């Protein structure tokens, strides 16, 4: 049986941050994720690296945390951040008293901000509604959530930590009131495994209650659904917030070649099977158009929902539960009369993931008797660029392709260069929207990558393949062939994998009611729809 000191449940930003933090402290750890990286709320958010501006008026402490973390993440993970800045826009529909309240609070929180009149704001962002009254600047940024999670895991794996995707924890073993290990199964192959450990960390987000139940304890988490729209344009070059009490549809984040508009907020029973109603989508679009009128005619690429796992403090648990702030909470179940060696971390925001990880790791280090300090705020997630590799890649690939790939891969780019040098045909672009070469595709599928992709959707999370207008209709097919050619899948496995990938991509487009993307979706249905339905009638060739 494998053994380690710590097992982490959940491969979102928090779990990945914990894995990296522990590896820096020399504590051995294995992270188990039931899906792929950033499977839950992390992969289904705006990708807004908060500067605190949004929270400053209602929650100064969270705002200060956000601002500090915003600065740190820009320093330790520059390759994950597009430092585009943000605006808090004053709309005539909103309460002018709030503008002044915000301005004072921003001063209190030391958020660097400038006050712009309408003319100045429109000069910066000409697509804003003409009737705006003005805007405040703030240091918001866009963070690529998949890359951030991957960067933490890759850095940790580089220091000996282990990470398993598609590994669902089914049991937590304990003896004498302490956890002794976990049992998990591979959700793709069904294989069962066990790991002996001293500490189990529940960082399962929306699934935190489920994980806690395995240890016979409870955590107060409530799932709150948010719906987001991906638009195939960048109508603004900065993050656009609406300067008002936080509400629906008031954030627009430019993210790479697209931008993301959101979000709504409604209580849901759990993180699975979320969907959005047409009314909700129209409502978000209408709100978005109040900020930037062009949004009304923008091409929507897809619509997705995520579940924030909110920490809901119960009245009675103040005795044991150590409430760290209003936004997130750490439970050391040992001190709560539960099982020893079991820790839950719930709530929080993407921007403060590192802070949460640090709190958890301090607690773990205390339990294990390890004298250590958190250094994740200082150590860069990725070593500095190799200049030689940089020169060579610019000889092999067009500049925009080379730049995108370098940002995605970092030092691993040398492997891709070697591959293209050996087989020049690998320089061919497989996904034109996100400029993914065949060489990069083969790299993320191969065993040389720290967390190899298991599915076509996994490839997307590592390279952004399929995130553009075709939504995988063309590049997904090519990725399927690449998986077949590199012996990852047999032909029938490849076809089956592509079919389930497409169905997932179709789901996110099915909610779109009109415009070019609907035509694109129909083309996708024309090309594969009938094929996929015949799969059912013909069954699996191997009789499964």
């Amino acid at each position: 049986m494998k053994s380690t000191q710590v097992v982490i449940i959940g491969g979102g930003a928090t779990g990945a941050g914990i894995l990296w933090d522990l590896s820096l402290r020399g504590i051995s750890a294995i992270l188990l994720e039931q899906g792929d990286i950033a499977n839950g709320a992390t992969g289904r958010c705006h990708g807004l690296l908060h500067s605190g501006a949004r929270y400053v008026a209602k929650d100064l402490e969270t705002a200060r945390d956000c601002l500090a973390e915003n600065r740190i993440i820009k320093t330790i993970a520059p390759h994950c951040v597009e430092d585009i800045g943000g605006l808090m826009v004053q709309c005539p529909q909103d309460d002018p008293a709030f503008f002044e309240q915000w301005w004072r609070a921003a001063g209190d929180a030391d958020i660097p901000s400038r006050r712009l009149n309408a003319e100045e704001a429109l000069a910066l962002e000409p697509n804003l509604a003409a009737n705006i009254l003005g805007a405040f600047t703030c240091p918001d940024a866009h963070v690529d959530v998949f890359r951030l999670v991957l960067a933490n895991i890759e850095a940790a794996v580089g220091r000996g930590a282990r990470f398993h995707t598609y590994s669902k924890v089914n049991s937590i073993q304990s003896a004498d009131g302490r956890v002794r290990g976990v049992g998990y199964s591979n959700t793709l192959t069904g294989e069962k495994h066990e790991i002996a450990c001293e500490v189990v960390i529940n960082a399962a987000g929306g699934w935190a209650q489920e994980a806690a139940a395995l240890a016979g304890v409870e955590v107060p988490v409530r799932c709150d659904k948010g719906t987001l729209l991906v638009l195939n344009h960048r109508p603004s070059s900065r993050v656009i917030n609406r300067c008002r009490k936080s509400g629906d549809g008031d954030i627009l984040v430019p993210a790479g070649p697209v931008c993301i508009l959101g979000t709504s907020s409604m209580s849901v029973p759990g993180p699975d099977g979320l969907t959005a109603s047409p009314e909700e989508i129209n409502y978000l679009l209408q709100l978005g158009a109040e900020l930037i009128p062009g949004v009304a005619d923008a091409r929507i690429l897809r619509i997705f929902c995520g579940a924030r796992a909110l920490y809901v403090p119960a009245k009675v648990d103040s005795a044991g539960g150590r409430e760290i702030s209003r936004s997130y909470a750490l439970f050391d179940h040992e001190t709560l009369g539960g099982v020893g060696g079991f820790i839950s971390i719930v709530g929080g925001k993407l921007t403060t993931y590192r802070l949460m990880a640090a709190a958890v790791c301090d607690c773990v280090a205390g339990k294990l008797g390890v004298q250590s300090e958190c250094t994740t705020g200082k150590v860069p997630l990725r070593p500095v660029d190799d200049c030689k590799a940089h020169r060579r890649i610019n000889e092999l690939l067009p500049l925009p392709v080379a730049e995108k790939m370098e940002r995605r891969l970092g030092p691993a780019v040398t492997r891709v260069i070697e591959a293209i040098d050996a087989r020049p045909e690998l320089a061919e672009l497989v996904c034109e929207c996100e400029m993914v070469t065949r060489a990069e595709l083969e790299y993320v599928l191969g065993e040389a990558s720290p967390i190899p992709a298991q599915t076509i959707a996994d490839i997307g999370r590592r390279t952004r393949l399929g995130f553009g207008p075709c939504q995988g209709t063309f590049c997904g097919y090519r990725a399927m062939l690449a998986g077949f050619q590199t012996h990852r899948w047999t032909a029938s496995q490849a076809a089956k994998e592509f079919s389930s990938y497409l169905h997932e991509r179709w789901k996110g487009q099915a909610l779109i009611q009109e415009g070019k993307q609907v035509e694109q979706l129909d083309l996708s249905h024309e090309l594969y729809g009938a094929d996929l339905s015949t799969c059912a009638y013909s069954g699996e060739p191997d009789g499964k």
Partner: protein
Amino acid sequence: MESNHYDVVVVGAGLSGLTAAGVAACQGLRVALVATGPGSFVLGSGYLKTQEILAAGPADELSEAIAFFCEMAQAAGCPFEGQFSSSRHLPTILGDFQSVTFAPRPLWNAEPRNDTSTAIVGIRELSYFDENFMAERLSDQARLLGSSCTYSARQISLARSCGAPTTTLRIAKRFDYDAGFRAELIEALRPAAAGFVRVLVPGMLGLCSREQQIAQFESELGCTVCELPTLPPSIPGLRLFHLLSRHLSKLGVELLQGFPVSKLQIQDGVCMELEVASPGHPMVLRGECAVLATGQHSSTLLGVDCNGHDEQMHPLTSSGSVMAGNLFVAGTALPGSSGSSGDVMEILTGHRAGSFAAATRGHYAAR
């Protein structure tokens, strides 16, 4: 008559639009065919599916429409074959078999036939078609269909003549104009075909090659050749479009490609003008009548008030009145159509709309 005035203006160059234009042109009318590009049918496999046959309408009208289309395709050099009664199978892009009713003659060669050995030939420089994938999939699927045919993968290289990487479009263009290239292709295919009854290649045998040219290619190779569908643009569908467009041009149809119709001017129950959004040069077409074959996404042209159609293919308003006496709809543009392209329904409705449009000749001339 003004140069922009036609007897019939057909909007959309998919299966139903091409059929409607053909019907009107065969009656000696002056026809304009306006389209942004080829319809979605030609981006796909290039064969007709069977899904809606039973609901497609009176049998003899359907037979007449199909017969008309097959005749037109034959005259265009791209004969279509098939029968309603038999369910036959052709391979798809995912390596499945799909029920097909009508297809261009060379595509039928890919049917699974008992005791037939087939080489699936890939091109090394063409990355988006994988012969091993196809061979493995089709072997599995043929077994499921109870066929004893066998598929083997072979690969050839066209690096010297086409460069790497290449596309089926580039190969098809060279196939059209370069006899030397066709000879090279035959030389490259010969060893791959040795010992097989037939070879299956990705769709690439010319963008406007007529049936005889493909037959000649086959006889020079000495082996039955068939094309498999690829990612769009799939050449067999595009070829059908090119050949039919040429044929219609010869019949006097004026093709206006690359232009979307942006607005219909309807006044007092008559469609007076069609505005065409050509960049920089706004254009207006006038027609005695117009046929809309613009596919599933025609609501911007027809308006949200459009709700259903009458027996003469006139679109109706939500109150049930005819939107315009000289306006007809066809294909998947039909309100309430289930909206699958590549279906015989498109030919039936295109034929019907074309016939009704032609019958209005002179009716609106006074205006």
